[in-house]
């Protein structure tokens, strides 16, 4: 039974279709990566699922409650970490988190404990009494992330959690998101960072121009690119046509590119299975291998495969529009 299920979920802003007939199922306990460039419709989807804005068409069930007919019940289950920190500029990090925890129903002792430990975790304890408008973008973002980590909702919507955050901070936040999942939260991670989606998500849905193009585990998405895996083999001497024909004959091999007579690039599927076969093939042909390098497609390649654009190009196009 999915914890989130959308049927034809659509949002229009005047002439612009921000989300177009979205059908989606998210299972309880998973980290679902909603991947796409800025303007793909990720944030609008999150806002509809969290009952902040109403869908124009279609509907969604969140925790078995309809976002249209029972939004109050939905809001009791969810928490959002917004892309742009939503903090009252005259407040302080302590007040923001303490009030948020209070509204979310945490007891006084639990609240104080969690606020203190989370401010420490996100390296904001020293700055807890500073006004929000005096904090840097990264600091504000850390306070925003801390809100959801304190709340620990059943369903957490996390929108670009590591934008403006340094590399060390990113890894820390990723660990915290995983801990949140391990503690029983279902996480919807909206991001335009392909690596972030790859390392965190159990499943990834790629959105482009308001539509969900494809949705599966990162591994299956990568495998879905025919010939997406690459093996680069450098031989000590040139391979003759007979060996190349034999190599072509392997069912996983899609294409062989001869960079030099002794330097081959092989496009194939399921690299982990086929590499031993390739090595054996060359050894049987008495061809010594100087070096061998394997690479799998990344989610960048998956995005290019399904949209025909890199994520940067897609963002540029969406900004131009």
């Amino acid at each position, binding site marked *: 039974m999915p914890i989130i299920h959308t049927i034809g979920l659509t949002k229009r802003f005047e002439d612009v279709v921000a989300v177009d007939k979205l059908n989606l199922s998210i299972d309880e306990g998973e980290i679902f990566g909603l991947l796409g460039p800025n303007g793909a419709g990720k944030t609008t989807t999150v806002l509809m699922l969290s009952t*902040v804005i109403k869908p124009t068409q279609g509907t969604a069930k969140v925790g078995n409650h309809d976002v249209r007919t029972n939004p109050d019940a939905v809001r009791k289950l969810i928490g*959002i970490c*917004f892309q742009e920190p*939503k903090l*009252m500029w005259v407040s302080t990090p302590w007040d923001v988190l303490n*009030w948020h925890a209070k509204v*979310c*129903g945490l007891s006084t002792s639990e609240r104080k404990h969690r606020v203190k430990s989370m401010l420490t975790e996100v390296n904001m304890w020293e700055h807890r009494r500073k006004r929000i408008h005096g904090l840097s973008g990264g600091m504000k973002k850390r306070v925003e992330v801390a809100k959801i980590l304190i709340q620990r909702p059943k369903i957490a919507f996390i929108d670009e959690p590591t934008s403006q955050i340094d590399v060390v901070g990113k890894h820390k936040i990723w660990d915290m998101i995983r801990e949140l999942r391990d503690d029983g939260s279902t996480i919807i991670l909206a991001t335009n960072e392909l690596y972030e989606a790859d390392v965190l998500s159990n499943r990834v849905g790629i959105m482009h121009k308001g539509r969900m193009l494809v949705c599966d585990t990162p591994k299956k998405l990568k495998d879905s690119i025919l010939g997406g895996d690459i093996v680069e083999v450098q031989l000590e001497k040139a391979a003759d046509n007979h060996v190349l024909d034999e190599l072509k004959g392997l069912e996983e091999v899609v294409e062989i590119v001869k960079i030099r007579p002794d330097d081959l690039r092989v496009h194939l599927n399921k690299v982990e299975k086929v590499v031993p076969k390739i090595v054996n093939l060359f050894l049987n042909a008495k061809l010594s291998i100087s070096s061998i390098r394997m690479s799998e497609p990344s989610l960048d390649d998956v995005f290019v495969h399904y949209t025909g654009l890199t994520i940067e190009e897609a963002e540029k196009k969406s900004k131009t529009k």
Partner: protein
Amino acid sequence: MKAIIHLVEYDFRNFFRYKWWLAGLISMNLADLLIMAVVYNQMLSPEITELIRSYISFFAPGVTVVGLFASAFMIGREINMEVRRQIHHYMLSLPITRLELAVGRLLAGGLRGMMYMTPLLLTTFIIVGFPTPLQLLIILGALFLLATGIAGVSIAIAVSISSFEKFITARGLIYYLLFFCSSIFYPLTLIQKLGQEGIMPQPFVTLAELNPLSNCANLIRAFLLGNPPFTLDMIRNLIVFSAVFVGTATVAYMKIIQRK
């Protein structure tokens, strides 16, 4: 109920972050009162002096109402800023019903107005005299109705207008219209006389008669000065004003804000 209390706390906390600005405003209101008392009292015609005894006694309840108006209106400015910076998305995502959210913000706006007005009301009592406990209760009730009504007007405008400049312009128009066509600075009888003489347009006279600021200032004057006489119409008008704008703001906050 808990949610409403949390929202009131949120707005009070933000209100007190401007404490020095508020202190400056209160000082300005009190300075106005003093200047008016000293200067205007000497400038008034005997005809008016006969009507109002002394200008300081007449104007003190007016300043109290002006202070209440300005501070209760502040909630709209904050909500307008929240909408422009999309902080309202955060408020709308909290485990609070839309009704609780609207009522909490309205109540907070009203209570903030009451809190700001308290030193001004105390000053009025010191200058003009203290009311009986029952009169005090009625005065506080009336001021609260006015404060929530003003918070309602302000919230309704704040969520209907996205631009801060337009919000400030709308606030300015309402300020001047309600202050000008009211009995804050001059007695209602004088305005009615000007209307009869054709000097003041009749719609302005009607507005001054129905104006909640007039009703509230006159209610305080009725109890403290005995003039104008207290009528139930004063309370009725305040209830109608408060009900209309609390209702409008609630609907606006619940419906319009979700589309932003």
